[in-house]
């Protein structure tokens, strides 16, 4: 395969404490002098089951996201990436974990977010590149497992393919135990 448009979502330990206005403020402070190209922050707290607070970037969008009615941080890589599928999966997973860590440490929050490093969703945001079928799962699984084994150890996680054919190709990743975000990042290299 040639996987592109990779998304990851990481869920909260403390979803009730996520305050959209705070996220808006924090994301806004990220725009000036960012090493990434950021454009603006959008507020969608008036709609359910979708983005809540969105930091729009050129390469990546980050959002406080309630899609599927579960709150988390969504990482949406929007441009074609170079490398093998394994490299792309690893790079994007590192991407979301780094941002999650940065958010946990951001002094702008009164209600600091705390993420579950072992509760993630992998999404391919392209129905052309990855139709939501068992065949796609078979094709993606080996590279996904290689990356997740690095992150959580061999056999240290469960995968669940979310099979609704109208949704994008998505796999729920649940690590065994309670992995620590910084350690997972370190293991990924």
């Amino acid at each position, binding site marked *: 395969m040639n996987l592109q448009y990779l998304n990851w979502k990481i869920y909260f330990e403390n979803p009730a404490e996520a305050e959209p206005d705070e996220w808006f403020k924090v994301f806004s402070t990220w725009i000036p002098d960012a090493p990434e*190209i950021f454009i603006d922050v959008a507020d969608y707290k008036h709609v359910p*089951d979708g983005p809540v607070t969105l930091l*729009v970037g050129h390469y990546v969008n980050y959002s406080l996201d309630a899609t599927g009615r579960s709150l988390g941080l969504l990482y949406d890589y929007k441009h074609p990436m170079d490398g093998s599928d394994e490299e792309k999966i690893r790079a994007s997973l590192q991407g979301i974990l780094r941002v999650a860590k940065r958010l946990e440490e951001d002094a702008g929050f009164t209600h600091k977010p705390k993420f579950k490093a072992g509760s993630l969703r992998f999404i391919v945001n392209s129905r052309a*590149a990855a139709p939501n079928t068992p065949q796609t799962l078979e094709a993606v699984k080996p590279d996904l497992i290689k990356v997740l084994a690095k992150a959580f150890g061999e056999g240290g996680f469960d995968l669940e393919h979310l099979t609704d054919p109208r949704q994008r190709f998505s796999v729920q990743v649940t690590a065994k135990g309670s992995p620590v975000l910084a350690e997972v990042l370190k293991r990924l290299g």
Partner: protein
Amino acid sequence: MPSTRNKQGRCYIYPTMKDLDLVSSESAQHWKKTLSDRLDPKWREDIDNFETDIVLKKKGKIEDRVFAETRLRMGAYGQRYDNGHRHDGNESRTIPFPTDLNKGPETKWDAPGMERIKLPWGGMSADQLDVMAELAEEYSDSILHITTRQDIQLHYIHIENCPSMFRRLAAVNITTREACGNSVRNVTACPIAGVCREEAFDITGYANAVFKYLLGHPDVQDFGRKFKIALSGCKHNPCGLTNIHDLGLTAVARPRPDGTVARGFEYVVGGGLGAVTYDAKLFSDFVPEEEVLALTQATCRVYARLGEKKKRHRARIKFLVADMGIDKFREAVLEERAKLPNDPRWTDFLATLPKFEEKPLRAAGKGIPKTNDAMFDFWCLTNVYPQKQDGFVTVTITLPMGDITSNQARALSDVARKYVKDTMRTTVEQNIVMRWVSEADLYNVYNDLKAIDLAEPGAASIVDITACPGTDTCKLGVSSSRGLAAELRTRLAVKFVEMDEAVRNLRIKVSGCFNSCGQQHIADIGFYGISRNVAGYIVPHFQMVLGGQFTNNGGSYGLATGGIASKAIPGVVDKLLDMYLHGKQKGEIFRAWVERTGKGVIMQSIADVAAVPAYDKDKSYYTDWGSVREYNVKDKGMGECAGEVVSLTEFGLKAADREIFDAQLKYDAGDIQAAGDKAYKAMLLAAQGLIKMFNIDISDDPERVMAEFRERFYDSKLFFDPIAGPTYANFYFGGHDERNAKLDKEKAGRRLKEAQIFLEACHNCNLRMSMGANKGKEGILAKPDAKA
């Protein structure tokens, strides 16, 4: 890679197939490959052409402003910060987009933009909504935004994703063509047409005919500004808003002496909001149905010919009608109408009208179910409309700020499939209606909608606030219309259920600037964004407009009352509502109360709540709603509502450039005959483009194009190069003579080179003429608007 260089040093470089692949991702190629055969051939050609234009633009072959108008005519609009700058509250910062390329004057290639999707008469099927939900996820931000003209807009889109989006839309019969730019925009219509208890007749099929007839029509390609058309089934309701449109058609059923009924339309022109509102003028109180398309075509031709092209702020048809006076305007249109050759499409559509008669999916009910659910009862009060067909109702799905997420949209499609087939429509109040709901199903529909958070009450009420995108995404936004609307909505919703009916039924509408996309002039309480200097600080404000009339199709405009600081507005609205509730006479509507009370008294009464505290006392007034940056107006840019004035000649030359590009690709791929044929076609298009300076009706017939080119450009020597004389025209003449010949590689290669040189000569000729180099030769040339 082949290249040639002309004597001015302009270098042509045509990309190889490999280069084309670089700008077309695998996903894009997938959609092209899998969908192309399913598309309407004309729409496919439009999309293929646009894709080629993207490639040519990246190669520097198309001017910024020509590309801007090209993309606008495919619905791809600019967004805030697309000039590459954003103010962070302290200073303006450059956004370091990766390329220096532009997609319009002062518009960065990589800056995200908005895509407007046209939904004629607001109609959409469940399958179409599903596709738009997918596009929102994959290319946008999972939000579908419904506009006040029944379109759907997606934001934060990269221009290079547009061809894939267009293909996926076209595969479900949606086009974005002419959704923006100087063209006929979406044709809007009453969303309850066909089920309305008060309509003269169902106008859906007529709206569709107007849309289809004018889409891409040669007579609507040369406007100075946009042209908006609306249809309504009756005069007194606000669903169609015909009075605020460039052209408004209101259904009239006129009894004939023999007892039958003649269908026709009241025809009004020149209405409009914007900075200065204009009342629509009555052109005719009855235009028979068989005459509607012909008269509309004639109106468009007069607007294209006589409308202002240079002064953008005077280029809408409302100015032309006002300047000429309705009588002279009518005379000009009728004269034009008399000259038009008959087109069978003017009346063919009448036979297709029954196709638009919708049928229910489920059997009629016998009354709305009785429940003990008070919220259901309240929702029925505000969101349910009993149809003229017994046992059926129309349900309004209230969308906050016109927004719905992809997941909600998909779930809504399922509800529609379950209860009503494909009878959804968007509304000018940024909602969606589902028609033909059986009364027997209503409680189940309510519960299904509730499960996806789409059963909010308050449709068409004071909490159902209309707002344009404003400073959130619009380049012209001055103040945060969505921020203000959200705040008002949240506050008013708390007391909505207990509100007096007179207050509950008022309308609030908000625009981020004076351009009135939020339609504030026809609201009871309207606002449009302005800024004010308060003790040396710039403070976000809104001009308050009171007493507009939403009914009677936007019957009359409100009164600008005064500027109010954004953060003071919720308090001001509370005070106003209180004053109205306690000061109104029995049965007195808001507009009448405003007129009786007077602007001075109202402003005086709200002065205490409207006051702006000093900066050091309360800094919050110096930051807009939905923003954390101290307010400034430096992010405001040049709007693209007006589009770019690009002549038909420039469009023709661009089409020729695209054709020669394709010819080169064919040549590189070894398809020699096709390369030669396309090279000739490129010359034909370029010649035709030049002729359009004088005759916009020039046909596509190669013989006519040749004859007219020879007469207007060769015999007049207008085309002659200052140094090379007539040489380059001879390439076209030679190509024309041998256009049906079988070509070998050498001959095709030669024709390709000659065509490239001829195209360059056409560009130079256009340049010389636009600079006035041929002044004095007009006598030989001028045959404006001669019908071929």
